């Protein structure tokens, strides 16, 4: 077995197994939690939250040293980071509510100010004579070097709590993300749900600080939901799919970095997630690039088929070779170009639908709908049966309905 497979099956040593399990759990919590931010179109708030953790780390260290410790208690540092991230989050929210600043501007301001303050504090800490400051900068990019059992337990426990909270709040959060006015009318406290959403993201950020670091945790919050969106049209499926994508990224990324010790874990996890994103972008059904290319080719064939049938219904000659090939393959015309019975029937239906469309354009004031006339889409897919009956009534007697 190669080192990568060993790591993937948790056989590359105790520490590597801990890291892989922790990364998978963190990835799941981050993917699922980030989904609601993405659906609420506030993905970048997570960037502000993540950067706002840094001053908390510094202040917590200084306070713990001042109290006589060595400043390296993980719990202390995480609580400090959570408090300062929460302050940063409330600051963004307050600026958006109380001033004319838009959210992106508020995010930019808070993110850079808090991060700057954090760097200043870290620099001061480097010059302090007391405390064990080595390794504090690992919170920027994450590190697995000193991963302890209790660190893995922290990630596992925190991740499980986050996932449980997501499950409990999934309906109010979906409602608020989709239609906040309706949610509020139903009695949902939109502001509180928004804060809960941010609170989940904050929790993911804090428990992920040690492993992936505050700069890259944003990637784990945003990339999995964006990837999952390629695969599903339903919010709840997007959320859990994003969780799975995050988990796989964490697990495979940790295994990769364990099998080649020079590779940093956090960045590799992010690259694996990005790889899954790229695959989805290219190959996802319907929304992927390949699918849309294929849909385009299928579309081209439908255009030619339709043009051919229209020409048949008007008894016009067909010259285009692709059109002729398509009609022949479907047995709509004989090899010599004369319409078969099926061909004539299909042409008659096409002619009738053209008349329905022309009535639709006169009767229907909804340009979004009549604008969907593309000469191709069967009219039944655009209008409801009662609408079509309405058009047929306007067409007039059955003698005009053409061939059916």
């Amino acid at each position, binding site marked *: 077995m190669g080192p990568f497979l060993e790591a993937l099956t948790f056989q590359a040593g105790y520490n590597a197994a801990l890291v892989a399990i922790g990364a998978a759990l963190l990835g799941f919590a981050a993917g699922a939690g980030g989904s609601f931010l993405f659906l609420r179109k506030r993905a970048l708030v997570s960037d502000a939250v993540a950067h706002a953790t840094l001053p908390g780390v510094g202040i917590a260290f200084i306070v713990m040293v001042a109290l006589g410790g060595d400043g390296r208690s993980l719990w202390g540092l995480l609580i400090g980071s959570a408090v300062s991230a929460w302050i940063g989050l409330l600051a963004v929210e307050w600026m958006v509510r109380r001033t004319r600043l838009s959210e992106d501007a508020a995010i930019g301001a808070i993110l850079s100010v808090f991060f700057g303050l954090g760097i200043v504090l870290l620099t001061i800490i480097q010059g302090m004579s007391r405390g064990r400051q080595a390794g504090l900068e690992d919170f920027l990019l994450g590190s697995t070097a000193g991963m302890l059992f209790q660190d893995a337990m922290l990630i596992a426990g925190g991740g499980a709590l986050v996932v449980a909270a997501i*499950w409990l709040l999934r309906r109010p959060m979906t409602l608020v993300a*989709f239609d906040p006015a*309706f949610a509020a009318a139903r009695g949902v406290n939109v502001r509180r749900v928004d804060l809960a959403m941010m609170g989940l993201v904050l929790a993911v950020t804090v428990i992920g600080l040690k492993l992936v670091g505050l700069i890259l945790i944003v990637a784990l919050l945003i990339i999995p939901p964006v990837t999952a969106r390629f695969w599903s049209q339903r*919010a709840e499926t997007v959320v859990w799919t994003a969780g799975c994508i995050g988990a796989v990224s964490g697990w495979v990324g940790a295994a990769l970095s364990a099998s080649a010790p020079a590779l940093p874990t956090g960045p590799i996890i992010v690259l694996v997630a990005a790889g899954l994103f790229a695959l989805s972008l290219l190959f996802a059904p319907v929304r992927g690039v390949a699918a849309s290319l294929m849909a385009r080719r299928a579309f081209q064939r439908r255009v030619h088929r339709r043009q051919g049938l229209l020409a048949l219904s008007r008894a016009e000659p067909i010259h285009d070779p692709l059109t002729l090939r398509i009609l022949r393959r479907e047995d709509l015309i004989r090899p010599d170009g004369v319409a078969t019975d099926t061909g004539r029937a299909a042409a008659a239906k096409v002619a009738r639908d053209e008349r329905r469309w022309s009535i639709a354009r006169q009767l229907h004031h909804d340009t*979004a709908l009549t604008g969907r006339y593309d000469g191709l889409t069967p009219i039944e897919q655009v209008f409801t049966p009662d609408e079509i009956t309405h058009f047929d009534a306007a067409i007039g007697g059955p003698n005009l309905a053409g061939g059916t």
Partner: protein
Amino acid sequence: MAEISLVDTRNALDPASPLAVRGLTVSYGEKPALFSLDATFPAGAMSAIVGPNGAGKSTFLKAALGLIPRVSGEVQVFGRDVDRVRDRIAYVPQRASVDWDFPTTAIDVVLMGLYGQIGLWRRISGQYKARARACLDRVGMGEFADRQIGQLSGGQQQRVFLARALAQEADLFLLDEPFAGVDAATERAIIDVLKSLQADGRSIVAVHHDLSTVPDYFDHVMLVNLRRIAEGPVRQVFTAAALSETYGGRLGATQIDTLTLQGA
């Protein structure tokens, strides 16, 4: 000795009314959007809120629902505070307020109307799905249940919103411009559903922009432009004088004449 009451009960809000407000003032910044508005919508009626753009029609619905803070005034729904009767209200917001690329299907949207009954955590059982589907059928959208909502036309989206309101089985329906940007068939379908709700004894209050259909569709009307201009049965209130006061110079005299002639 006569009792002295500090509470003015002479003009108490009618507890039988599905929606009654008094002295309602709402403002964005320091410019009031509605000023000291009184209204009492009758139970079991189709009521329209009519007025020019920016007159505060949507604001009225939002303030009545407590979605935006009011500066002063009182709102009662079925004689009680709105927060205590939310289960009896179905609200259909303006179509434009929603992100139509959201990953959700028509039936999922209707199920959102049932969240109140399903609860936060319970699995959505077949019974609820069947009810949601029945609501979609009622607005003629049964075949579109599994479409992503962005793939529907404006009129179809509006029907899905109405189906979500139906699922709530409310007693009061508040609709914000339900006919804006929809096709004639959808307008027909929506009005049929609303009339059948009314026949069931439900009350409907809709912000409405098309003056020509007011006499056909509605029993009761409130003309509003920042303040209440007139309110009452369409036949009494929907007059040329009231309309020109509501719209100022924005409607020509001939237009108003035609409208009120139709209404007479």
